[in-house]
């Protein structure tokens, strides 16, 4: 298993997907009834895959650790979903979406996959509308769009600030329909703790029933991992508390290569942390950058005055403000891609211009938009000579309509009214572009084990554009995986049900049992959170927004040492066979402690800056990221060898046949 075959179909990029679908094996409808598929995860990728596979006739078993599939973390996505519909007639096309995504990903994604993503994007919107997803509409009754960072067209569909919720509930309802028909069996409050291989193929999982604590064996002819991202390796992130790497990591340990673990997206607009007790960070959707302008004071004396409460940001004159994104990137302004916006905020704060007590915050200001919308509204409502206060009021209504729930979230957390005073924001870990390596069929290096959604590495290269994760999750689940999986399953029409009484199931279950018992019986002196927080701090300080050789080496050593300490000194209360949230956390953090080290190793190995990965050694004189296409135009796929620091590197060379490699510029 040392060569990576990406199985990219022959032919021109625009024909690859159609050709491929025409040539792969398919399973006839009667035979599909003889085949079982396990889907781990009920987010956009998992729910859509479960629904589609069941509609086609497969017997599907779906797992999630929450109490209902509707609560998968996709529910929290706010801003929107991209699709090349060109409803706004602004020159959008499949090619343009493809181009933007490859460029946005800083030329570190596979062209063929990205093209396919762009190609199926339009069908996603059609499908969701057919399901009753209430997207935002214009007064004429047609669908509305907004713009996201890194692009010059308006192609993002949205449902206020709750797009993920509406899309997930659409997929959840499609899946519920199949549950009702008996084609999907749903296992809520179940956590996959290992993958079972029989004759080298993925044939099942060991899952823990989180209510009773019982370990269960589940078999199938193929296993799909749609288990989300691993941003919580940083402890603080915008991910949900339960988001974790365990399913992917356990598959990795069983032979699935892990690709580009260090590609992390640090989102520029999150609510800054307020204290040590902080348990998570909250995103303020990128869509806000459509209407918000980002700034810090120009002069240090004003920074001081603001921090000490002597000066209000609203009292600072235009001339004394530094709209640094508009200054540095006049073409894209506040809508530069996320990685660029995050680094620019860090640069200003490191230089001492941060506007809150900790010095880690910049302003996101809606005044200009409020006044602009207010004047428009006054005009269309035939209000003559409106006062500033009237304009403001009208404008605030428009803003409320667009972002009401985000403003409410902000106010609840900070106790500040963002209609009246600018929001304070700072970058936070948000999304992981890295994940399990998959080929064009979304199969990992373990035959029969697939990865979809954020759990795989495939489409976003080194930086994901806003509103593209929802698109990818649903593309994978509705339109890609249900077809490509047939190519593998066609060999299984005569296999019959896979028994769970085999030595393989037995041995894997025992592994899991031993692991959990070791954690419970450890009886150390420190809580799981203690270790998770420490790991997060090392990751953020040394493997965060800026990375350099020395820090990365230190991080690797520190994480290794922390892992040893964890196994000596962690305390997990309760028992194995009961509802035990601390034990769940412990098993997840144990895996984060391994992933963290590989993450740092990958970052060390990639001695170039690209997308969200910024190596201080590799920058231009102006401090912009410098990519190195001669030496690093490849995907790093790591093979587990028993120890994260000794993982084996396999390279998938990236070939760009349709898009010319260029240094990204948003100036």
């Amino acid at each position, binding site marked *: 298993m040392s060569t990576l075959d990406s199985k990219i179909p022959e032919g021109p990029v625009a024909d690859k997907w159609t050709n491929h679908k025409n040539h792969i094996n398919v399973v006839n409808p009667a035979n599909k009834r003889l085949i079982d598929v396990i889907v781990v995860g009920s987010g956009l990728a998992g729910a859509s895959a479960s*629904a589609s596979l069941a509609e086609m006739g497969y017997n599907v078993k779906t797992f999630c650790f929450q*109490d*209902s599939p*509707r*609560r998968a*973390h996709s*529910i*929290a996505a706010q801003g929107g979903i991209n699709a090349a*519909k060109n409803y706004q007639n602004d020159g959008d096309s499949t090619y343009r979406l493809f181009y933007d995504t490859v460029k946005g990903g800083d030329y570190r994604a596979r062209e063929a996959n990205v093209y396919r993503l762009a190609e199926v994007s339009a069908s996603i919107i*059609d*499908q*969701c*509308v*057919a*399901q*009753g997803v*209430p*997207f935002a*509409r*214009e007064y*004429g*009754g*047609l*669908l509305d769009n907004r713009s996201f960072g890194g692009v010059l067209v308006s192609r993002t569909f949205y*449902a*206020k600030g*709750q797009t993920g*919720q*509406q899309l997930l*509930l659409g997929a959840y*309802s*499609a899946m*519920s*329909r199949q*549950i*009702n028909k008996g084609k999907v069996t*749903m296992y*809520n409050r179940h956590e996959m703790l290992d993958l079972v291989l029989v004759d080298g193929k993925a044939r099942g999982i060991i899952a823990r029933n989180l*209510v009773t604590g019982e370990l269960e064996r589940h078999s199938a002819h193929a296993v799909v991992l749609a288990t989300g991202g691993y941003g919580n390796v940083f402890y603080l992130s915008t991910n*949900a*508390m*339960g988001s974790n790497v365990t399913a992917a990591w356990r598959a990795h340990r069983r032979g699935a290569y892990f690709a580009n673990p260090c590609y992390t997206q640090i989102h520029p607009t999150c609510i800054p942390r*307020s204290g040590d*007790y*902080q*348990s998570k960070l909250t995103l303020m959707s990128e869509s806000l950058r459509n209407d918000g302008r980002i700034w810090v004071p120009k002069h240090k004396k004003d920074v001081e005055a603001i921090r000490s409460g002597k000066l209000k940001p609203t009292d600072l004159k235009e001339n004394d403000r530094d709209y640094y994104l508009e200054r540095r990137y006049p073409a894209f302004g506040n809508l530069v891609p996320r990685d660029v916006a995050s680094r620019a905020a860090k640069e200003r704060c490191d230089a001492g211009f941060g506007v809150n007590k900790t010095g880690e915050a910049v302003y996101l200001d809606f005044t200009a938009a409020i006044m602009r919308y207010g004047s428009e509204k006054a005009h269309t409502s035939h209000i003559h000579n409106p006062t500033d206060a009237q304009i403001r009021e009208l404008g605030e209504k428009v803003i409320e309509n667009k972002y009401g729930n985000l403003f409410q*979230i902000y106010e*609840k*957390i900070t*106790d500040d009214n963002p209609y009246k005073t600018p929001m304070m924001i700072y970058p936070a870990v948000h999304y992981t572009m890295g994940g399990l390596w998959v080929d064009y069929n979304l199969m990992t290096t373990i035959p029969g084990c697939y990865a979809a959604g954020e759990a795989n590495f495939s489409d976003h290269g080194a930086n994901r554009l806003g509103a593209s994760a929802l698109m990818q999750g649903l593309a994978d689940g*509705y339109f890609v995986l*249900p077809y490509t999986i047939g190519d593998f399953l066609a060999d299984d029409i005569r296999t019959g049900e896979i028994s769970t009484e085999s030595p393989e199931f037995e041995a894997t279950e025992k592994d899991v049992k031993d692991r959990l018992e070791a954690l419970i019986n450890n009886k150390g002196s420190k*809580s799981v*959170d203690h270790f998770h927080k420490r790991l997060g701090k090392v990751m953020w300080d040394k493997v965060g927004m800026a990375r350099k050789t020395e820090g990365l080496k230190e991080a690797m050593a520190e994480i290794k040492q922390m892992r040893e300490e964890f196994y000596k000194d962690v*305390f997990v*209360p*309760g028992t194995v066979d*009961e*509802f035990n949230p*601390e034990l769940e956390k412990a098993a997840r953090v144990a895996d984060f402690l391994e992933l963290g080290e590989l993450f740092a190793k990958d970052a060390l190995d990639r001695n170039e800056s690209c997308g969200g990965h910024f190596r201080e050694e590799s920058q231009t004189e102006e401090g912009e990221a410098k990519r190195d296409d001669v030496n690093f135009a490849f995907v790093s796929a790591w093979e587990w060898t028993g120890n994260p620091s000794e993982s084996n590197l396999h390279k998938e060379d990236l070939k760009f046949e349709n898009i010319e490699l260029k240094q990204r510029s948003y100036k």
Partner: protein
Amino acid sequence: MNLTLKIWRQKSPSSKGEMKTYPVKDISEDMSFLEMMDVLNEELINKGEEPVAFDHDCREGICGMCSMYINGEPHGPDRAVTTCQLHMRKFNDGDTIHIEPWRANAFPVLKDLVVDRSSFDRVIQAGGYVSVNTSGNSQDANAIPIPKENADLAFDAATCIGCGACVAACKNASAMLFVSAKVSQLSLLPQGEVEAKDRVLNMIDQMDDEGFGNCTNTGACAIECPKEISLDNIARMNREYLSASVSK
């Protein structure tokens, strides 16, 4: 601030529960309610005791997982928020806070503050969808324009997070607000209209089978609902139900 917490502790679904008292110290008013619970749990763990089990995930008011009955109100004293969005600035130094799980026959307690809400899933499975397969050739999304007003109303109903506070707030433990939100969303859209009759009948049947109580129009549900789902939805569902029953 310093607080006294009185918390429902129950080891398992079958065991008997009781209220237990825990003092907590140095709570910052910028903490969320769940961060305050984290502080308590960390203390319990450090003392070698069992932490309090509670449901939570997104901690930003959207997944619907958190579910605490605080001082006699689901999601606590603040309006239009979930427990995870409730902040300690709503409390005062020296307060005693009572924390219990949702109470309803259809939501049995699993442990401490954790309840089983899978009855909600089963109500959706009974009909909370549009019967459309994934095909890749559905008609174009803009083929049927939808009046913005209806789209907006459907959206408002669709923002229900399935938390169950409406049930916990209701003296009859009725699920009408939750069920009507889904029925309304789909009946307001042309895509959902086709199956509207069967949907409302099947979902209400399931709701009754799960053991949710009857609606007596008290309106406590809408007051406690973190997403401000409107009582209009219940009225709309009642109309739908009546017309569907008549035509059956």
